[in-house]
């Protein structure tokens, strides 16, 4: 369902992704782990085209973007946008729209991107808010919510576009420990419902519980991939072992 081949990305002269390959089935939950600065965020951002890769190809569902470089014409721009619509993104810093209510945040893209009638978009938004346990906050503004609540709204906002894959970039790193569980619970529920997901996280217990596959990233490459049992109990690489040992003592 997701196929990434030889993805290369540099910022100015610094190469950040050194030809990443990745393949993922529908319904598979993948967790990316790895040291800081190894390119995890860059990889996710390339997947939904917030960054444009220099080379390689990305396929999500029935859309493929190849060749790298920014879109050169209307057709390429449209293909880029269609790829984007296949993936929903949840950011570390929530990035809710502060001038819109919770309900409007969730209904915004369905209304204006999918051209859904307002009543229908808001009904769907209410249902999604109920799913993340926030239906009573529909009329509130983001500034009136706790961090955990904001991140759950952000998840509902991404889900509203009915993406084929959900991308999470450290969704709980900006939260106090006591607020993390409510977000992780929602993500776990999504995984159980069979949502295809890629999650960047430092929550090792969570990764172990919910991941189908774990990718260990280092220096802009996938150093090691495998099931949680494999990675956590019998990592092949010394670097992986060292990273996990440090992560568990932290």
């Amino acid at each position, binding site marked *: 369902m997701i196929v990434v081949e030889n993805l290369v990305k540099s910022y100015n002269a610094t190469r950040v992704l050194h030809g990443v390959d990745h393949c993922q089935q529908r319904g598979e939950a993948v967790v990316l782990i790895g040291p800081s600065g190894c390119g995890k965020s860059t990889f996710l951002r390339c997947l*939904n*085209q*917030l960054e444009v890769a220099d080379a390689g190809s990305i396929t999500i569902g029935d859309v493929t973007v190849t060749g790298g470089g920014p879109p050169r014409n209307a057709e390429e721009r449209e293909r880029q*946008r269609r790829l*984007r*619509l296949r*993936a*929903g*993104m949840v*950011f570390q*810093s929530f*990035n*809710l*729209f*502060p*001038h819109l209510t919770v309900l409007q945040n969730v209904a*915004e*893209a369905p209304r*204006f*991107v999918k051209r859904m009638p307002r009543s229908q978009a808001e009904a769907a938004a209410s249902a999604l808010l109920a799913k993340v346990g926030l239906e009573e906050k529909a009329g509130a*503004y*983001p*500034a*009136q919510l706790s961090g955990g609540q904001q991140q759950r709204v*952000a998840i509902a*906002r*991404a889900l509203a*576009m009915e993406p084929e894959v959900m991308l999470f970039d450290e969704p709980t790193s900006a939260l106090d420990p006591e607020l993390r569980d409510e977000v992780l619970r929602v993500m776990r529920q999504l995984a159980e419902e069979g949502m295809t997901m890629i999650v960047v996280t430092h929550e090792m217990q969570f990764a172990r519980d919910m991941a189908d596959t774990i990718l260990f990233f280092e220096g802009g490459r996938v150093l090691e991939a495998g099931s949680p049992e494999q990675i956590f109990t019998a990592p092949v690489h010394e670097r992986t072992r060292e990273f996990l040992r440090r992560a568990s003592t932290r």
Partner: protein
Amino acid sequence: MSNAWRLSRGSFSFLVFVLLLASRPPPGFCADHLQTIQARGELLWGADAEGGAPYVYPDPQKPEQMAGFEFDLANALAARIGVKAKMVQNQWDQLLPALDRGNFDIILNGLEITADNRQHAAMSRPYYVYAQQIVTRTDTMGPSDLDGLKGKTVGVLASSAAQRLLQRLGAVDVKSYPGNVESLLDLKARRIDVVVLDLPIALYYAKPDPALKFSGEPFSPGYYGVAVRKEDLSLLAAINQALEQFIRDGTLERIYRRHGLWDDRQAALAAYQPEAVVQRKSISTLREWPKYLPLLLRGALTTVALSVLGMAVAVVTGLVVVLARLYGPPLMRWLAQAYVEVVRGTPLLIQLFMIYYGLPQIGLRLNAFLAGILGLGLNYAANEAENYRAGIQSIPKGQTEAAQALGMTQAQILRRIVLPQALRFVIPPVTNDFIAMFKDSSIVSVITLVELTKVYGELATSTYDYIGLGLMTAGIYFALSYPASIFASRLERRLAYDRR
């Protein structure tokens, strides 16, 4: 807190304004001014060299030097009392107040000997007999006498004899201009059909112009005289003596012939008998406010209309400019940036002159009101564009990325996410600009618009009550601008979605 600060700054500048008016030196502070001048070695004479030919003007051949018949006369006068002449530049319709303030010793600049002027200064015996001349375009059959002017729009120099004459006549739509050239430019631009002006000006500016013609004979003759402060009696006597001598020995005739201004009328100079001056008591406009306040309010109406419409132009144009600058293709970005830099780097006055007097020369003729709105609006548009840019760039990048990730297009992101959030940051600086434009709009009097400050200036020069009228005028400005700033801070608070 910011509100209290704004209020106190407002009242502070108001206080300073009043103090400045009150600190004018009292008249009569110098006993024998002639001796002071002789000790100083310089006779300071006030005149306006802008559009000032043939009276006094920068010599076209040597622009750093002055020329003109009054320039020559001033030199002759100064020589007679044994000093050098030195010109002090001053806007023409403010010459009398400036004399009173002690900016110079005499006025020698086409000032008519009238009862009104004699209220404010002592006038010498006449040095020139002028008359009024009607000027029209060559291609029109214009009126050739005073009665023919009724029902017409007639251009005149502000505070000139022609303006008073026509206002007394009534039934004439009088349009007053800050200088001599501007009325003739508007005549050629077909904004007006007739100009009435002093004959010497007409001889210099209109006669040689093939597009313009004299219509009818000169009429309403009058005298130019030298004005001195009323208490400077010895100076007045010395000037009268000198002028009498110049008339007798032919010095005056020589000067006037050199400038092509000598005519039969000048024979009256020798036979002049001064009329007795009837003293009027000075006016307190504050006590007579029901008479003056409505006039000021009518000017305020123009000020409000100008600044509201001008700001509307600025707000909309500024948005177009900032969008071109931030999101347009490279050439458009460059043009938008150039627009902002050029407009912000040049004076509003020059922009107004170019729009009002310059555009007709390439075939685009706007009336004064439209030109004023356009001038103010396009000028402020550059500021608004910069305000918007600061507002847009203060929106975190994460907002755009979140919207992109949801599949919104560039235009949707701008319209639905970035601009609504930028609005709140932009309201305070835009309100400040609105209030600034409200006050800046007084500059449009240079293109014949009569707004609040112009009305104040006109009333103050005729009543001499700068303080009373000033208090009323300042009160009107404040009463109009303060609610605007209150309204803005309310609006800003209403939009504070993250502090509920």
